[in-house]
């Protein structure tokens, strides 16, 4: 195993870990979004979905710990790489122009930290409910919980903002994954970049649709 840790501790190896864990988190986002969208099919649909998840028992915990591991790996690589990137140019330029570096790619650390903060907020909000004791009286009515939660305009706006930043993160992150894993081909590059950005936008619109529809009273 020594060979693997040595390789994965190098700069290129750390990027490989970032790319793979990033892709896995993206997979989670898709599954989670598909589940959440059952909100639009009414209370039975989403409550049933939540009940099914909870009935999985130990399996849910396995999934949660895997997700936590992936999240921590992604985050710790991000921190390590960022520290060494900052150290690589101790004296900054007086005048520097970026010709090609996109805004999204420059914001990766900020959008990433926002996602972390959002996930913590979100876990407390809908899963642990530490500071939302009123949700505990709903008796597993996830549908009501979402409506109550997003009827608070500030909460809904915070979710929308956070998810836009998640979309910005993925807008650079998804196409970048291919490059980090050494996938580059003239015939497919356009498609890879397009699909990456397309999914970033789809994820963002998908998640935003829920707080937005509650905020505007489309779903009550």
């Amino acid at each position: 195993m020594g060979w693997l840790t040595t390789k994965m501790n190098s700069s290129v190896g750390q990027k490989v870990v970032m790319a793979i864990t990033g892709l896995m988190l993206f997979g989670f986002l898709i599954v989670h979004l598909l589940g959440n969208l059952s909100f639009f099919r009414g209370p039975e649909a989403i409550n049933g979905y939540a009940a099914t998840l909870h009935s999985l028992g130990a399996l849910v915990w396995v999934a949660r710990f895997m997700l936590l591991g992936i999240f921590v790996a992604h985050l710790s690589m991000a921190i390590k790489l960022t520290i060494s990137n900052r150290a690589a140019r101790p004296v900054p330029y007086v005048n520097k122009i970026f010709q090609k570096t996109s805004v999204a790619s420059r914001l990766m650390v900020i959008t990433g930290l926002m996602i972390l903060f959002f996930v913590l907020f979100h876990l407390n909000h809908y899963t642990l409910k530490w500071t939302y004791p009123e949700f505990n009286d709903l008796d597993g009515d996830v549908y009501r919980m979402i409506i109550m939660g997003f009827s608070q305009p500030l909460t809904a706006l915070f979710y929308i903002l956070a998810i836009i930043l998640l979309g910005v993160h993925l807008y650079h992150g998804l196409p970048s994954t291919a490059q980090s894993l050494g996938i580059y081909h003239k015939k497919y590059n356009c498609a890879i970049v397009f699909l990456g950005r397309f999914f970033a936008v789809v994820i963002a619109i998908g998640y935003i649709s829920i707080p937005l529809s509650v905020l505007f009273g489309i779903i009550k």
Partner: protein
Amino acid sequence: MDFKVHVWRQKNRNSQGKMVTYELANISEEMSFLEMLDVLNEQLIGRNEEPIAFDHDCREGICGACSAVINGVPHGPEHGTTTCQLHMRSLKGVRELFVEPFRSRAFPIIKDLVVDRSAFDRIISAGGYVSVNAGSAQDANNLPVPKEAADKSFDAATCIGCGACVAACKNASAMLFVSAKISQLALLPQGDPERDRRVSKMVKQMDEEGFGNCTNTYECEAACPKEISVENIARLNCEFLRSTFISNEE
């Protein structure tokens, strides 16, 4: 042409540098950027001031000695051009020039605009070569090379090792340079036997020199005077994965 030129002046490795402003009049459009600096230096010498130190050698865009970040871009605003081949006519309409050294921890400043790029030499020494003597030219058909591979290898080999990729990158990453050196050999039969060892050693050396990490912004490609493609970086990543998971390398 008249310019207000802001230049980074720094006595030596350990001293603190700062931007110093000079007024420069009657510069010809036909001059190269380095000739403009020559004119400025003559004036400085005439005033008994220390001339500006800058790197240069061939002055025809092939040696990779010249450097400098000009108005925010390594080698200046003209695409695919070294500082020595940049002409003042391509700075028409510009009144102020900002001239700074390539900035990176791995390229310590020796004086003014001159930086120590021996980190690149050490990366090459770590594995950027073919160990056995390839011998004299043999029959051309003995070692068939597909045209596409030959072209890509040649494109990668046009890298002059100037360091503009490092200077341009927001992370001061050397990945474009290292990947060009890896690609030019990995694509050819002569480089094949050592490809796994080569990528491991060169990446290790690159990390030890203190360069940053690639975040796929492609700023390096935009700044490269030889227009080396970031496809080479993907190839480096691929070679790295191969050496990790497929090769028998320990």
